């Protein structure tokens, strides 16, 4: 084996809503958007391919950043509708047995007690396969649905997240692992000396505790995080078990990103091997290299013919109305955002059209399963680890099958990804190598 084995995960971009719906392989994707069945099918396919986890992305508003109204978003079903991922996660857990299920929940929308309780219940019911994708929200519109005028300033959101994380962990550990005695003969259900209030009083939260349920199989869920800004990386290095990265610039930039996260994690007294950095990828796989390249060319042609579809995403993520910029003029460096800092930094100086071209994936993996597997191996050997997070906005069952039943077997033949789950709990599998 030329490289160390690496991890695979899936990013459920667009959340619990409309996936592919009016394209070649959409099937009934438009009509069945509210059914959990597509997600169940995906999770089962990924489990067959021995993926570590699947993230259910989320945000909780109807965007209107592009053109200052929601018409284009609703018309194209871009980033809306999205239903609640905590309702979907139990159904996916129920119908799988090994893969990690990771709903996205925002620290600026939840109270820590409610979130800790939901995650604890999910972890119990999934037998230790629950993760939490920690986000801080990045849109004023989400804040306004929750009674605020504007979202908190970027770095302050991470201060809130830090405290939120600390409160939650204390709640998850407020019952000792052996607190439940279940002594039917003496009528003693639990040992009260092993259940502890937390009496937390911080800058943002006040929580008495304990949680009203016993410690779950994993205790704490697996934490995933995607912050790419300096403050976001600091938070991720402190808390995350898996950092998801869309960093641009090829393997050299990926390596820098990973090294930085690992160094910062060490600075927090953590073992850097406990933080798995997974890089976003949208492989295009065909029966032959030529066929895959032709497919990729068709995708690019479609994207170039419909630049507004890409700009809808860009506007929503950055909080900037890209409808105001001419498609082929460089974005001025005076543009500012209180949303995704990293994304805006990457866009400045490029024209919207140029930026769109690069935004689909951090790097292109195009070819037959063997070709793509070789390329992934090469990239991972250069970066040092820890794996890839597959994402595809036009998500249909055919694409899932191409990855799970085409690409992954090629990776497995090279000894690059696991062929069996070693453990029953999500964290144990993630940290195995």
């Amino acid at each position, binding site marked *: 084996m030329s490289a160390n084995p690496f991890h695979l995960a899936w990013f459920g971009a667009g959340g619990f809503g409309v996936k592919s719906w009016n394209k070649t392989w959409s099937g009934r994707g438009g009509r069945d958007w509210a059914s959990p069945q597509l997600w169940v099918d995906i999770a089962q396919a990924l489990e067959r391919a021995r993926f570590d986890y699947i993230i259910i992305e989320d945000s909780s508003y109807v965007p209107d950043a592009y053109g200052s109204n929601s018409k284009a978003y609703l*018309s194209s079903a871009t980033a809306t509708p999205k239903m*609640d991922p905590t*309702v979907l996660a139990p159904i996916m857990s129920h119908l799988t047995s090994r893969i990690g299920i990771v709903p996205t929940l925002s620290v600026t929308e939840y109270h820590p007690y409610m979130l800790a309780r939901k995650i604890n219940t999910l972890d119990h019911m999934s037998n230790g396969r629950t993760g939490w994708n920690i986000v801080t929200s990045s849109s004023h*519109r989400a804040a306004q649905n929750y009674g605020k005028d504007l979202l908190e300033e970027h770095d302050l959101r991470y201060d809130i997240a830090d405290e939120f994380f600390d409160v939650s962990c204390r709640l998850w550990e407020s019952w000792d692992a052996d607190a439940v005695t279940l002594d039917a003969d003496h009528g003693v259900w639990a040992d009260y000396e092993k259940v502890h209030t937390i009496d937390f009083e911080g800058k943002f939260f006040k929580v008495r505790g304990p949680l009203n349920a016993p410690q779950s199989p994993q205790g704490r869920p697996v934490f995933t995080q995607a912050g790419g800004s300096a403050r976001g990386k600091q938070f991720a290095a402190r808390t995350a078990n898996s950092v998801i990265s869309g960093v641009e610039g090829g393997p050299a930039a990926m390596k820098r990103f990973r090294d930085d996260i690992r160094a910062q994690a060490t600075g927090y007294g953590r073992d850097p091997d406990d933080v798995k950095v997974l890089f976003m990828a949208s492989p295009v796989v065909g029966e032959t290299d030529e066929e895959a390249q032709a497919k990729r060319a068709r995708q690019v042609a479609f994207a170039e013919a419909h630049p507004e579809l890409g700009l809808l995403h860009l506007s929503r993520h950055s909080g900037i109305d890209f409808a105001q910029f001419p498609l082929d003029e460089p974005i001025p460096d005076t543009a500012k955002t209180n949303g995704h800092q990293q994304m805006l930094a990457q866009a400045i100086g490029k024209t919207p059209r140029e930026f769109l071209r690069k935004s689909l994936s951090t790097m292109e993996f195009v070819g037959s399963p063997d070709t793509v597997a070789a390329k992934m191996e090469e990239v991972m050997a250069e970066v040092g680890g820890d794996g890839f997070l597959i994402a595809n906005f036009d998500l249909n069952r055919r694409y899932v099958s191409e990855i799970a039943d085409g690409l992954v077997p090629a990776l497995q033949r090279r000894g690059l990804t696991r062929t069996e789950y070693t453990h029953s709990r999500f964290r144990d599998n993630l940290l195995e190598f």
Partner: protein
Amino acid sequence: MSARPFHLGWFYSKGFGPKAWKHQWAGPKSAVARFTKPDTAVELARAMERACFDYFMIEDSSNVPYTYQGSHHAYLRHSVDTPKLDPTVLAPYLIAATEKLGIVVTCSTTEYHPFMLARKMNTLDHVSEGRIGWNVVTGSNDGGAQNYGRDKQYPHDERYDRADEFLEVAHGLWAGWEPDALVLDLEKGVFADGDKVHPLHHEGRYYRSRGPLSAPRSPQGSPVICQAGGSARGQAFAGRWAETIIASASTPERMKAYRDNVRATAAAHGRDPDQIKILFLVSPTVDETRERAEDRYRRSLEIDDNEVEYQLASLSRQSGIDFSQFPMDEPLPDTLVSNGHQSMVAQWQGRVLADVIRGNPLNSGSNAFVGTADDVAAHMDEVMQEVGGDGFLLVNSYFSRRYVTEVCDGLVPELQRRGLTRTAYEHDHLRDNLMAF
């Protein structure tokens, strides 16, 4: 058919936590230890669907209580209302295991923000294809508030003022997408019509929310609203919002008086009283012979020391009053007042504490349903005729699998034979089934 048909629900008392554990027929310890798994609830839901129940209501509260003796000791020792896992996580499992049964989830208006609650209910209703209800509670124990950053619950009546506004916001959000906002024009590539999706811009006394909800109107539009408040303010709230009410009264006369009052309040709010189904809590004891059932019932009333402490801890939690301060054999003070469950505490004033503990109104007087399936069905028929409607809500905090089959496969077929409960679901949505008669 001697009476109009009535409805059946099941009150999943003590929420998503342990059921029978030290009790008879609890099963092997390995099964009892799976109290954090969906097994018991899923099996109950399937049995209920087989028996054509209207709905499964998951009770909830969100703290380890410590009212009794100022400690959580008794609560954990006897498992008194703790642990309880999150009912919104259990609900999707029940949805996945059933096709027609309504699933009613308890969520507190003082713990959720209206947008988050409205969003979860909308998703649950989509995923269940129109079978969701929301049991609206306002929180009653200070320990619950303390987990959410506050020292105490809001005063009783203010909780309902807040809840009124909460329901206004939630219904506003549920109505934000017009029923035909989804276009789904595959040829033109138009998913939804932005002109038919409306922000709410709610700015009230307690809540603000811009909207719209991030997903289209769900099959029922809004969840079926369920409520249990027995106080005057609680009844006013229920009269305005509730579509089904969980009620408890010790005699048919009191049941009738309660029902008549709620229906009058609803009419005063301009509602059709038949759009509120009042279900009364019952814990029937059904066995093969009347003697065996009566013997079982008698034994269920025998209370050992553990049970006394259990009951005292339970009363303390519900009322917020530490009952360890009162002697067992003396009347309770007339000044006993609760910020929690007010109507319940008012009934205890001046009564001897030991009698309060023994006289569980669910299971005493003319409301003790004890006997063969035939006896109990006849008794339920008789009571419903006197009360006027609308049905019963089964409750048994520590039920066993055996109890479930006694009700669903013993009692219910007898009710069906008498034409008292449905033998098939007519509709797909919970609300349509609930309002069918």
